[in-house]
């Protein structure tokens, strides 16, 4: 039996990996605080660096971290990229900005979206603030923060990025 259809030139070959993710003690506390609308980190008793998300240990000193620190909703842009290429399954329409952000009170950045901004004007040292979802939608997820948006505040000098206290540039250094 012959087939009038075109010859086969490709196949779908998806791979699906099913995980059971267990957060561990420190990340579980972090996620529980997120559900209550708070960003938290942990301070190392050795070097005093504050890590977000906390992992329960300092990667530099190799010692356990216990002290929980509530961080600011304000943050500083450490670096960023403008995404122009659509990613299959991603609901966000390009071009959009993905940035490494250091929240005030922490010494390490995490990745989140920047929005409500002029993409071409985003720059390193820029001050931004978290935009949270309505409280009723808060879950154990970083998505509780929809994105960060620019703040009308003076830029943070590059050498100060990642060194601000929880009160920002005006407060004392952490």
């Amino acid at each position, binding site marked *: 039996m012959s087939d009038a259809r075109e010859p*086969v030139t490709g196949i779908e070959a998806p791979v699906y990996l099913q995980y059971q993710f267990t957060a561990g003690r420190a990340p579980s506390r972090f996620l529980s605080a997120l559900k209550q609308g708070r960003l938290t980190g942990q301070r190392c008793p050795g070097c005093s660096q504050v890590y977000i998300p906390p992992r329960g240990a300092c990667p530099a000193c190799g010692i356990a971290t216990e002290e929980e620190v509530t961080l600011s909703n304000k943050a500083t842009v450490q670096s960023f990229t403008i995404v122009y290429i659509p990613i299959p399954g991603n609901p966000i329409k390009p071009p959009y900005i993905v940035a490494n952000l250091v929240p005030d009170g922490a010494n390490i950045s995490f990745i989140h979206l920047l929005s409500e901004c002029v993409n071409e004007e985003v720059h390193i040292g820029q001050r931004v603030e978290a935009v949270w979802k309505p409280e009723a939608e808060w879950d154990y997820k970083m998505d509780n923060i929809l994105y960060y948006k620019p703040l009308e505040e003076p830029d943070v000098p590059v050498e100060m990025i990642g060194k601000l206290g929880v009160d920002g540039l005006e407060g004392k250094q952490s």
Partner: protein
Amino acid sequence: MSPTEVLSEAFELGFTYTRSTGPVVGRFLTGLRDRRIEGVRASDGRVMVPPMEYDPDTAAALDDFVEVGQQGEIVSWCWVSEPRKAHPLQQPFAWAMIRLDGADVPMIHCVSAASEDQLATGARVQVRWAEETRGHIADIACFELAEVAQ
């Protein structure tokens, strides 16, 4: 939350790959869609199923396609008593190396059988085609013992 409560949840990571099949594997899959199994003749005269693009000895491009039989013989096999979700059959089955009539090398596929003791090296098996073929290795739903199929 208590300090000892630890969060845990399931999640799935999916890689939605598509693969280009090239002229040789594409022809093999096109054949399966037509319920035919095609191999390719290598420089030493052996018929390879599934077909290879290049000769294993000389590395020359191969294009001497040969249709092989839909029956063959089990060369080696392994019983799967607890199939997983990703397996082609959900009842216990065997993975088997099957040398099809007219082929010189075995091809891996699954064999459906009522129990492990029905299978043996050298047993004759026959293709069971999927109800609908689409140009995929799963167009061969499985093999089954030739005497059962008849």
